[in-house]
């Protein structure tokens, strides 16, 4: 295996494009190194981009934040601005692994690993986060929602990699929340998860809502029917019942060692309900 630290995004793209063997980008390394240890993957080339400009920075941009691809969970969690604007995104990221893993793991690594259970992805999706992609043809922006295409698969083309995530501005009276279910209190992979992002009017009526669920389908899933259930309501019991039904209907999970179809479906609904209530309270709503 070769380890390379390119001196620019352009060179990194070229290196990636030219590589003939198995290539991996080293972000936090908390997935790649585990896969190497388990002999699931043996890269011929490992490209480390952490040192490149902007990769480890969080910058204010148009009322939102641009988060470099190598910003660790711990660094994100310490950033007051992102915490205030998108607390659900931060809590999704911070749920990944242990304190030790937080010192290394990144949102972009979590996203590109392509796990249906990735904790940072649902809240990025409900936040409308945008991934900036560099490749042989320069940079382009796409919604985070469009990055994962299946377990372990992304829409990135040959030679492409993500350099940052943009979390947009949001109005007053808006917030988000993320919850996942795990058997223990820490250290597990999500069995099911839900992120909810809400915007409220001055009376506490939901004017905009996004609901995403994780670990219950091959990729994170945005549930439009769930959004519709919430919009125009102050999250009354009827709205919550509809939300839960919409979420359950949107689940198509698998039975595996971590959970059953029935359990994943049921808890996804419960988590969406609870996350919606947290997001609503964070947005200033009183029910």
């Amino acid at each position: 295996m070769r380890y390379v630290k390119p001196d620019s995004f352009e060179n990194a793209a070229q290196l990636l494009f030219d590589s003939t063997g198995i290539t991996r980008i080293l972000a936090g390394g908390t997935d790649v190194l585990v896969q190497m240890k388990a002999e699931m993957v043996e890269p011929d080339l490992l490209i480390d981009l952490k040192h490149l400009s902007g990769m480890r920075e969080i910058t204010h941009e148009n009322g939102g934040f641009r988060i470099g691809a190598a910003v660790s969970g711990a660094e994100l969690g310490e950033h007051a601005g992102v915490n205030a604007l998108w607390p659900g995104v931060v809590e999704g990221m911070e749920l990944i692994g242990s304190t030790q893993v937080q010192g290394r793991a990144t949102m972009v690594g979590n996203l590109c690993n392509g796990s249906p259970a990735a904790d940072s992805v649902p809240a990025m999706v409900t936040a409308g986060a945008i991934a900036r992609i560099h490749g042989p043809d320069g940079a382009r922006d796409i919604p985070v929602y469009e990055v994962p295409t299946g377990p372990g698969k992304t829409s990135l083309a040959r030679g492409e990699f993500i350099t940052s995530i943009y979390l947009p501005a949001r109005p007053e009276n808006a917030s988000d929340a993320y919850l996942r279910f795990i058997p223990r209190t820490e250290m597990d992979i999500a069995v099911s998860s839900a992120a909810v992002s809400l915007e409220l009017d001055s009376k506490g009526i939901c004017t905009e809502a996004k609901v995403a669920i994780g670990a219950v389908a091959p990729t994170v899933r945005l549930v439009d029917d769930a959004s519709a259930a919430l919009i125009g309501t102050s999250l009354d019991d009827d709205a919550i019942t509809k939300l839960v039904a919409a979420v359950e209907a949107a689940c198509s999970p698998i039975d595996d060692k971590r959970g059953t179809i029935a359990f994943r479906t049921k808890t996804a609904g419960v988590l969406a309900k609870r996350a919606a209530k947290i997001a609503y309270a964070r947005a200033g709503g009183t029910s």
Partner: protein
Amino acid sequence: MALDTPKRDFKIVGTRVPRPDGIDKVTGKAAYGADITATGMLHGRILRSPHAHARIISIDTSAAEAAEGVKAIVTSADFATPDDAGIRDIRDNCLALDKVLYDGHAIAAVAATSKSAAKAAIRLIRVEYEILPHVTDVDAAMKPDAPIVQSGRAFESVPAGMSQNVHSHVEFGHGDLDAGFANADKIIERTFKTAATHQGYIEPQACMANLGADGRGELWCCTQGQYMVRENCAAILGIEASQLRVTSSEIGGGFGGKTTTFIEPVALALSRKSGKPVKIVMTREEVFRATGPTVSTSMDVKIGMKNDGRITAARAELRYQGGAFPNHTVEFGAQAAFAAYDLAAVQTLGWGVMTNRPKEVAYRAPGAPTAIYAVESVVDELCQQLNLDPLDVRLLNAARKGTLSAYGPTFNEIGLVATLEAAKNHPHYTAPLGENQGRGLSCGFWFNFGGNTCVSLNLNSDGTVGVVEGNPDIGGSRASISMMAAEELGIPYDKVRTVIADTTSLGFNDVTDGSRVTFAVGLATIEAARAAKNEMCARVAKLWGIDTDAVQWEDGSVKPAGPNAGEHAPMSIADIAAIADETGGPIAGHHEVNADGAGVSFGVHLVDTEVDPETGATTVLRYTVFQDAGKAVHPDYVEGQMQGGAVQGIGWALNEEYIYGDDGLLQNASLLDYRVPVASDLPNIETVILEIPNPGHPYGVRGVGETPIVPPLAAISNAVSRAAGIRLTELPMSPPRILHAITQRRDG
């Protein structure tokens, strides 16, 4: 052996002194199994079966042998044939004979100049398999048409006509069951299942072997018993025990899992073949696939009770699978199941079963936690249905002195009633509970034993003392042994240093297991100290020109026994040590014994849980352990055993399990998906030590390590069942299982 004085005042025993190995362990200097290296050493790695059950048609090692850096390859053909059937099984588990019996079964091993070369070479070994049908579930394995794991292994107690996977059968009990059940006001009969769990020690097995062509060798390894390793390895390698010196490293947890050998014979064979030292360190995946697990079980329990809570009859049938080889674990489950009860009519049947899973290894009170889980669950349900207080019912039926135990003998003095009363009087028992919360309790029991033990105690010329013992220190035993030596000699604790001998430096010692070390090694240490004291008395008597009877030992000094002995200034150990050369040479004491009289041990656990009715998640809110520990030599480490055992049991109850797919392969061979409790899962574990002296030990010491893992399974299950409003009968009580039960209850 009588207790010296029932209420003896101790000076050192019972205090909380710092452990002698402490500084090395908080500074990273302590050398564990994988920390040991040798110049010129090779790295060994083991090829393991990807199949649950297959015949090995051929093994082609030619490509691996030709690979860069490869110095030796071994298979089962490199092993000898031990006389002992148990050791032959260990051998066949170390490297498969003609069949692989489970996913992860070792087949061949490589020694190479680097870890990566060894890893690469492993992949070049070509094994041709004939895949055989497999079975991993205990009930399925007992069916007459089940795939046969090994044939011809059944003990004589197994009735004819059963599956050949059934290797053993036991029955215990007494009294008229039919009459007892006929006399009951309420009978509950239920079937329980428990998953296999792993000891989960944080340190994977590791060893470094150096064996010459002349059969002389050295082995360093992390083990619960260096003598056991020597005997197994010598037999498997076909060398003499005297030629193999085994040194135990510091050990990073065992809990029973390091009471056998997995990699040591392989490393020795590789070393012999390559002529170089060979180190093998297991990966965590190997630890899960090929070492350890305890039994998985299927159990039926039926108990009859009068309306006042008196049990009239009790019956249990236990089916334990212990992997691909015979074992005796079900015998202990069957004996322990009803040990806490005074029963007029009781019967326990046990069946030991082979499956295509790794060879079962002892795990803390082997066999007892699962059987007692089933029994204590049914008792709790009877209490619920008859509206009786579960502690009162246990007290009403508690075994006590004179009780004919369910496993045969009549109990002598035992501490169960005192332990139950301590629980009843504790504020935890009456603390209020909230919504979705439940309180559970369970009794626990373990036999304890003593075993073969040698201790040598040497007086140094400056009056300090060295103690040499032969049991790896897994949780602070060097401290407790030094404390007992210092207590007996009347010298300060820090004047004693206890070390653990290699196999050539001291006579045979049984493995560190069965809660035996503080009891048996302590006993031998006290006796060795007494021998040294006798010698010191004799020397001083000679010096003073009086009879040995005319001197006495008091507070670390030899003094005249009375006015008739004459006027002599007392001589301290240091005084006597200083003139040892002149008075006859070095002074030492030693003691060798196969200790008995360990005394059975009871505990009671009390736990509050809260169950989330929407997700099935369980939170352990409060936990209290009550246990009769005999004299607690070092209370910190007694509490530590009680807390650690309780938490292992909590893991067993809630989340830990071996998960096999239909393909017979283990699906969760990692600490990510084999879920041991983490710090944030738990409350503080409160402990109440009852010190009821064990008459079989000079200081009243009783083993404490095994019993604490027994009650948590039922205590948690009873608490969860009460919180969830429905009886759970399968472990682990993972959230999907609990939510499923709650949903079923709601749907009627």
